[in-house]
């Protein structure tokens, strides 16, 4: 199964990274286009250092990569990792398709 392509440690890092609403929001913003950490920091009621920490968590999970450009750190999304999360949701979707087929069979019997 696709899910097996993730090691347990990878999965833990990805899920930990995605479990926080600020980090999910950062990910959505940088998925649209690359942003510097200071540009990102303007969107949140928290310190630059706190935003930098969130970016570091996303980076360790492989969800974004960082690039130093002069004095700025530019953050890009890493679509391949996001793809893996979608694969996980697809595995969950298969469970639901199985359930829907079960309901359909049950309704046909009654």
């Amino acid at each position, binding site marked *: *199964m696709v*899910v*097996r392509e993730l090691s347990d440690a990878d*999965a*833990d890092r*990805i*899920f*930990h990274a*995605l*479990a926080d609403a600020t980090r*999910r929001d950062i*990910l*959505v913003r940088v998925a649209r286009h690359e942003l510097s950490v200071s540009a990102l920091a303007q969107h949140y009621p928290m310190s630059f250092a706190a935003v930098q920490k969130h970016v570091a968590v996303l980076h360790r999970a492989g969800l974004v990569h960082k690039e130093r450009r002069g004095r700025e750190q530019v953050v890009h999304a890493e679509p391949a990792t*996001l793809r893996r*999360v*979608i694969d*996980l*949701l*697809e*595995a*969950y*979707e*298969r*469970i*639901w*398709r*199985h*359930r*829907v*087929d*079960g*309901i*359909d*069979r*049950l*309704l*046909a019997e*009654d």
Partner: protein
Amino acid sequence: MPVVKAYKDAEALTLTVVAEFDAPVERVWQVWEDPRRLERWWGPPGWPATFDRHEFVVGGHCGYYMTGPDGEKSHGWWRITAIEPPHRLEFDDGFADAEGRPLDSGKAVHFVVTIEPRGTGSRMTTVSTFADAEYLEKVLAMGMEEGLRQSLGQIDDLLA
């Protein structure tokens, strides 16, 4: 095909499944309301469910277990948060220990189920939201083991 559409939102960790059935709304509602009907489809592949508690009212608790391919049991709980028969059901679903006590500090998947008439049949929409992303892995682990067992079985057949 009863499943019409499925939408995934990787950032918000939600899955929406829309299904249409050739049966009136009241009969689709019964597959949730009647525990004997519910347990015939709730468990993931290879993990049939048995409900030993089913309080189908707001604030009500349900308890169930699913029996795996090697006879191992995985226990779960529901807490009903909204109910409007026969159109709307909301509940939290989580893992429990053998006595039915919630595990993972009460972490749960939130479900919103709506059933509407559609032509001569019904349309059921189910939105699952994973409050904690790590939880998704755990939920999948059961179905995955079965999937792995099936693929190993197929390889075994090829080698025979």
